[in-house]
């Protein structure tokens, strides 16, 4: 399993649009990918689960990747997050 901690810099946090793109990126991979904020966890392949976490600028999130393609998933998703959030 791989883990990635990140502080959100986008002033709008994870609102609908990037949530949708994050879900799209996560769905490319077979691994289970989760996002945790303040002890609450959502499935990165479920847009409602992510939006409900209401991730804002300055929040620290933890992403976990677990599965056969976790290396590739980690690379792609963390790059997306760093570039867009």
């Amino acid at each position, binding site marked *: 399993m791989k883990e990635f901690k990140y502080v959100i*810099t986008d002033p709008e946090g994870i609102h609908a649009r990037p949530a*949708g793109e994050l879900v799209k990126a996560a769905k490319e991979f077979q691994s289970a990918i989760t996002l945790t904020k303040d002890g609450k966890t959502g499935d990165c392949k*479920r*847009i409602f689960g992510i939006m*409900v976490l*209401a991730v804002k*600028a300055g929040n620290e999130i933890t992403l976990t990747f677990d599965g056969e393609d976790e290396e590739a998933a980690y690379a792609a998703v963390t790059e997306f997050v760093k570039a867009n959030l």
Partner: protein
Amino acid sequence: MEVYQGKSVFGGIAIGRISVHKKDEQQVKRVKIENPDREIARYRQARQTAMEQLQNLYQKALKEVGEANAAIFEIHQMMLEDDDYNESIENIIHMQQVNAEYAVASTGDNFAQMFASMEDDYMRARSADVKDISERVLSVLGGRTAGMAASEEPVIIVADDLAPSETVQLNKDLVISFVTVHGSVNSHTAILARTMSIPALIGTDIPLTDAIDGKLGIVDGRNGCIYVDPDEDTLSKMQQLKQEEQEKKELLQTLKGRENITIDGKKIMLYANIGNSKDLAAVLQNDAGGIGLFRSEFLYLERETFPTEEEQFQIYRTVAETMAGKPVIIRTLDIGADKKCDYFEMEPEENPAMGCRAIRICLTRPEIFKTQLRALFRASAFGNISIMYPMIISVEEVHRIKEIVAEVKQELTEQGVSFGEPKQGIMIETPAAVMMSAELAKEVDFFSIGTNDLTQYTLAIDRQNPKLDAFYDPHHPAVLRMIQMVVENAHKAGIWAGICGELGADQTLTRRFLAMGVDELSMSPGSILPVRKIILETDVTKERENNNLC
């Protein structure tokens, strides 16, 4: 004649027939069914159709209102594909052996409720999105075509509220305005209305009855009201205003894309002043040549902690990239004790206008200054960024700034972080800076005159005090002479001088400034095209002769 008040989301005047749009309240009944598998298949079919409808709406919106606003339909598609949403619906059908309509309506309500109870304004507004997609699926299940009745003549649509899909389907040729009872300034409806440039009102206190359907209406987007069945006077007055508005708009449209060049060939830099990266759209819409003043304070206000270097970097970089090579002049933080910024822990001052503010904070608390500088230097690698320092009164300050800048560049180099070579200028907004402008001009790459503060400090008048109106002359010759002196000293040292204060947008002074040799004018985006018109009609050489300036 009746008048109803609302809140304007877009200005302008619309005159036409009113068409009241009533939404079909989808009556959903809970019906027991025999075959859950077939019902689930029926749901999936309807969902597929809904997805196709959304795809069409997305394409239409893409063409009409651009990618950023069309994205909502992609979001709707993702919501329809969401596992949580679909599992809920299919579970209800399977476990309770009930019709798809009931399962969709229940799920839609639950998810909408979940969003509606969130603290965040933005998330609460998403509740409408969930309702919209569920309504869409219900319409397909019921064999109804979602949408508005087509009208033959251009109308003013009056409705309770309008979902994003409904606003996009409005044929702009047949709809001249819309007025809703509900809605919010941040709703997608409002955003789309602004992009489509249709006068629109929300939160309007208007009854959705047949009595107003078909009547003549006038929407006054400037004052946020709608007149139903207007009397003669009102009608002719508004028609007149509308005519003037139209002529002005057409004239300005012919100015877009033209170079800011005087009759005798002098090029003027015509830029925009903005206070937030959200204003970037207005900058581009009004065809500004660049940003002459980007007030960086918004990064520091309305928060509890200092913005980090990373946060600042991302924002400066985004602005630079959005402006795609056009100059962006960013002013370093201009905060004082009068601004609500508790985490700065500034002591209250008797006289904040003359207190520890702007560059004085930066020079006495270099760690704050360096964070901003680091972010600016890093971002300058991504576009055409220049930096501007406010409230300067001496050459010594500029030397001290240069020392700190050198330290920042050294540190970035040692850390292997790439950065650009931004031009650095200063604001001339104190009488001291004016008097020292000859020396200061040798130290920096450009001057930008902040006429608001310069006038205040020079005339020793508090502009907020109405009792002093009799003494206040915004065109006081003292200030105009100062501007001339600054421009001359700038040119002697081979640098450019511009104006970013309110006087820059004052169209009665434009010719005079051009005659003085002002190289750049930066103003709120709405003034840019009118000022361009004046520039295009000015012959600087003739103006100088007329004003005996040499």
